[in-house]
């Protein structure tokens, strides 16, 4: 069953600043719909008189992503929030290999003595097998 990796979304904005207009419109119109469509994400709305409006996304593996929503329209914030809700908390860097195993070797990894005969099995004129 699918477990959403996004834990909580914190919407920090100021009730009077000009660049938080989109955030205020989002809170008035689209926040409830977004919260109903994503029931496993907790949405915190906290007005604060501070710097630029932020959208904080915290994931189950601990990563916190901050997105600036200054001078964005309500629709853009909705799109941004749905994009964050679909992501997992892994870092967005180049994946070196598309595969990974914790147990790469079942028969034992090769070392220089794997295919050499041991002292127990050598049949020579001097050494006897045991």
């Amino acid at each position, binding site marked *: 069953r699918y477990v959403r990796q996004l834990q909580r979304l914190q919407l920090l904005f100021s009730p009077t600043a000009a660049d938080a207009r989109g955030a205020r419109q989002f809170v008035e119109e689209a926040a409830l719909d977004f919260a109903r469509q994503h029931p496993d994400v907790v949405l915190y709305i906290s007005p604060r008189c501070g710097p630029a409006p932020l959208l904080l996304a915290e994931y189950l593996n601990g990563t916190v992503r901050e997105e600036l929503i200054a001078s964005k329209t309500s629709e853009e914030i909705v799109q941004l929030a749905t994009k964050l809700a679909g992501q997992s908390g892994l870092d967005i860097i180049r994946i070196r290999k598309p595969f990974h195993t914790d147990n*790469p*070797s079942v*028969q*034992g*990894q*090769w070392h220089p003595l794997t*295919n050499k005969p041991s002292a127990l099995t050598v049949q020579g004129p001097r050494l006897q097998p045991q």
Partner: protein
Amino acid sequence: MVLLGAPCWLRSRLTDRFWRVQEVLKYARHFRGRKNRCYKLAIRSVRRAFVKSTKARREKKRFLRALWITRIEAASLEHGLKYPAFISNLLKSQVELNRKMIADLAIYEPKTFKSLAALAQRRRQEGFLAALGDGKEPEGIFSRIVRHY
């Protein structure tokens, strides 16, 4: 808004020059010498680095294939077979493993690789018998071809 004449130009100042420079320098931080600090030298080095990395993606495929072939050759020589004999006999026995997988098997599953080498050796012997024995003896077991329809 059309800005005509120098007194009008002087109104707009470039304020984020620092971040524009940092965008380039962040890709040059691990370089050697002054090109990891000085912007003028860094833009040249960063551009060359990107061009080289784009072109090297085609070379990487050749390089990795050569690496796998070297490893398979070393592993099959441990079991007494040379690389061309090993690969051709594996293909004739309808074992269609690519070089990457055979190299990984040779590293992580040495017993499986030993059995693959034994299979190739047996198919080789059957090939010799079929070519030199001239007809009367029955065909070898591992030389039979399975057709999947």
